[in-house]
């Protein structure tokens, strides 16, 4: 098809598609009027049965914790896939112009931000099942702190601070830990990912049983996975600087 033919066909199709989508959506209950069984039930029993004050956290790591296992591995394998595709096996030469910024003010602010963002990330991860947040959000925030290291100092400092083998190990260990917690549940309680720890008091850190373990496993996995992802793309970016040659 030529471009024009494609867009003509698409305009007809888009018209039909919007019609059907709207037809379906107007059969929903009107906005704000929802009373679905699943959500209502979990809102009712989530805190009492799981002792997790954040019901979303309880769903993510327990009621539907198996979805999250899949999600962890989606992230995990995409990092593997990106590394596999980019094959950044090239050594970045020790070149000076690899730094993102050379402005002192930016560096100072960036440097100050690193601990703040890091602590924020840890806090988000730690209180995931008590207040909003959780392993994923915390993990990405921790990874952002590592990015700030780059803006504040140099690419080399960033690369040295985040050695790929260590990150590989953390990522793999986090992902494996999730599976292992699941398997322990299978061994002790007969169901994969079944809770095997005391539930504790809702609203405190020592609550919610094995949700805490899964939460931390995923926080480590997500943080390492994100840093690895950024690294892959940074290495591509760094190659655009003059003086850096591709090896292949």
């Amino acid at each position, binding site marked *: 098809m030529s471009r024009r033919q494609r867009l003509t066909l698409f305009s007809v199709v888009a018209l039909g598609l919007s019609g059907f989508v709207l037809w379906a959506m107007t059969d929903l209950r009107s906005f704000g009027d929802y009373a679905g069984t699943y959500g209502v039930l979990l809102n009712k029993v989530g805190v009492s049965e799981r002792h997790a004050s*954040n019901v*979303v*956290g309880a769903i993510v790591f327990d009621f539907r914790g198996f979805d999250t296992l899949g999600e962890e591995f989606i992230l995990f394998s995409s990092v593997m896939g990106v590394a596999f595709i980019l094959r950044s096996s090239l050594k970045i030469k020790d070149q000076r112009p690899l730094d993102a910024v050379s402005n002192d003010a930016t560096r100072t602010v960036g440097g100050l931000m690193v601990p703040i963002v890091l602590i924020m990330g840890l806090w*988000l991860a730690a209180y995931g099942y008590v207040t*909003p*947040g*959780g392993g*994923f*959000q915390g993990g*990405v*925030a921790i*990874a*952002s702190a590592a*990015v700030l290291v780059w803006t504040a100092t140099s690419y080399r400092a960033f690369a040295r601070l985040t050695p790929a083998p260590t990150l590989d190990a953390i990522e793999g260990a986090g992902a494996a830990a999730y599976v292992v917690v699941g398997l322990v549940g299978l061994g002790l309680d007969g169901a994969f990912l079944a809770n095997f720890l005391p539930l504790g008091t809702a609203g405190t850190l020592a609550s919610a049983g094995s949700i805490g373990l899964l939460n931390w496993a995923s926080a480590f996995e997500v943080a390492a996975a*994100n840093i690895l*992802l*950024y690294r892959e*793309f*940074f290495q*591509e*970016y760094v*190659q*655009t600087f003059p003086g850096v040659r591709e090896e292949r």
Partner: protein
Amino acid sequence: MILQLISFTAVMVLGVLVVLSFDPLRQVMVNGVFGLSLVVLFVVLQAPDVGLSELVVGTVAFPLVLLATIARTKETQRPK
């Protein structure tokens, strides 16, 4: 109610703008604003968990990955 109306409309308008920004660099910026409008909407819809996710993803992960790719593919390329 008004807040919901405004944030939904903002998301819609910005989403259309993202698609219609053909220059990649410009699109990254518009996309960043679009991401923020989504965060606001999620908070308005009482979904702070999702809002936080979108915040960390939209302000760090998306722009970083996109900017690196844009920089990498910008140079005039020699054929293989």
